[in-house]
């Protein structure tokens, strides 16, 4: 609660700083619109923004969910199979370093301009951090617990479900945290490459019509969601860590 209040305070400060900057530098509105202008555009275009926001938010959430599920599946698979580990572990590390954003145009050509290509884009940028983090967590199970499971005669799967996975939850939390930051980028870049709706599309449209205030309004709506997602996932990760700590 206190954190939220402080965050709001900082936000207000930032907006005030922005307004002052605009006054001082007399920067033309088509380069940086004043917050007051953006706020008016936000209000005037509320229906348009809401409609497009819903599309983008949905893609982000769906992609994040899918990416997380797939990432978890891969991590568990790798943890269970030493062979898969040898073969796939470097791929995971490698793939994270590849600019997946650059693949957006190809994805679009394959999957069309509908939400599918954006969701897959989000999956791509969320899958690797989740898989990698959870896998690390699973591999870092403290030796002692492993010994305990062995001496107690635990089966492979029960050991996984009752010890290895719960102990790796904080690692999963930090993976999802990274993924949640990347997910909105994935969706917006997917939309920039080709789309007929969504906040990224709206930004392009506003840009093409020289409506910088609308472009910023869309950006604000996106940033608000990103921050909210960040906070929500943070809280979740914290809860997971508490459960273990």
């Amino acid at each position, binding site marked *: 609660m206190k954190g939220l209040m402080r965050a709001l305070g900082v936000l207000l400060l930032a907006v005030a700083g922005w307004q002052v900057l605009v006054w001082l530098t007399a920067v033309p509105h088509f380069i940086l619109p004043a917050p007051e202008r953006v706020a008016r555009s936000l209000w005037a275009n509320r229906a348009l923004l809401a409609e497009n926001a819903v599309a983008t938010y949905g893609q982000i959430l769906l992609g994040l969910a899918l990416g997380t599920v797939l990432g978890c599946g891969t991590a568990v698979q790798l943890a269970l199979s030493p062979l898969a580990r040898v073969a796939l572990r470097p791929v995971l590390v490698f793939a994270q370093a590849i600019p997946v954003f650059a693949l957006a145009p190809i994805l679009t050509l394959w999957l069309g301009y509908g939400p599918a290509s954006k969701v897959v884009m989000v999956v791509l940028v969320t899958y690797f951090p989740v898989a990698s983090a959870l896998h690390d967590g699973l591999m870092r199970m403290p030796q*002692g617990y492993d*010994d*305990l499971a*062995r001496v*107690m005669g635990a089966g492979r799967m029960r050991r996984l479900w009752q*010890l290895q996975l719960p102990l790796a939850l904080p690692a999963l939390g930090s993976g999802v945290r990274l993924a949640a930051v990347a997910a909105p980028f994935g969706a917006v870049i997917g939309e920039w490459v080709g789309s007929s709706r969504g906040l990224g599309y709206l930004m392009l449209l506003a840009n093409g019509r020289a409506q910088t205030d609308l472009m910023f309004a869309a950006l604000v709506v996106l940033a608000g969601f990103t921050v909210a997602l960040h906070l929500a996932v943070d809280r979740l990760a914290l809860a997971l860590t508490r459960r273990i700590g």
Partner: protein
Amino acid sequence: MKLPPPAITVEGCAWLGNAPLFGPLRLVLQAGCWTSLLGVSGAGKTTLLRVLAGLETGARFEGAITAGDGAAVGPRLAFMGQSDLLLPWADVIGNVTLGARLRGKRPDLTRARRLIAQVGLAGHSHLRPAALSGGQRQRVALARTLMEDRAIVLLDEPFSALDARTRAEMQELAGRLLQGRTVLLVTHDPLEAARLSHAAWLLHRGRLEALDLPATPPVRPVEQPGTLQAQAEMLARLRALT
């Protein structure tokens, strides 16, 4: 325990790479008795215990582990170490019944509650480990070990993280509750060995040397001069090592 506690013999050598760690040696745990193992840090005590438990070690072991009754050793083992290894997300009763759940069996909750009461935590069944003191957590670990009801129990410095008072209490509790089982106790504390063991060995330069103990049966009171005497002698033996 379907069979009575067996005697256990570990016989063989262990290497770290090409350097010998211990052996050839022969360690016999008398059936139903406590055997202590002392030695300087790095002597190989933990390695020996883990070899007995069939757990991975950094060393290569060549030799055999045999039970006096000829039956398999592995499934009759329980194990307790310096860290309590409780699951932070499970309450006391969940931790005590972990073994059954790991084997996919229905835990015997009545027995678990009885054991929790025996270790003095009757009212604490539904607390999480974070709400317990270090001594209480080690009691839960003891109850978990008892719950396994194994004939052979391996203890690797089980009380070394506890303060003197709690440690003395835990020694008595464990000595009482594990009575009649075949126990191997690895410890650094001469007083602990002097109080708890039927036989004590010093692992030094890869060989075992016998340590003297009072004639009275364990658990021996601290105040008893024989106990203190044995402690002082063991410490002197340890300090004389080069």
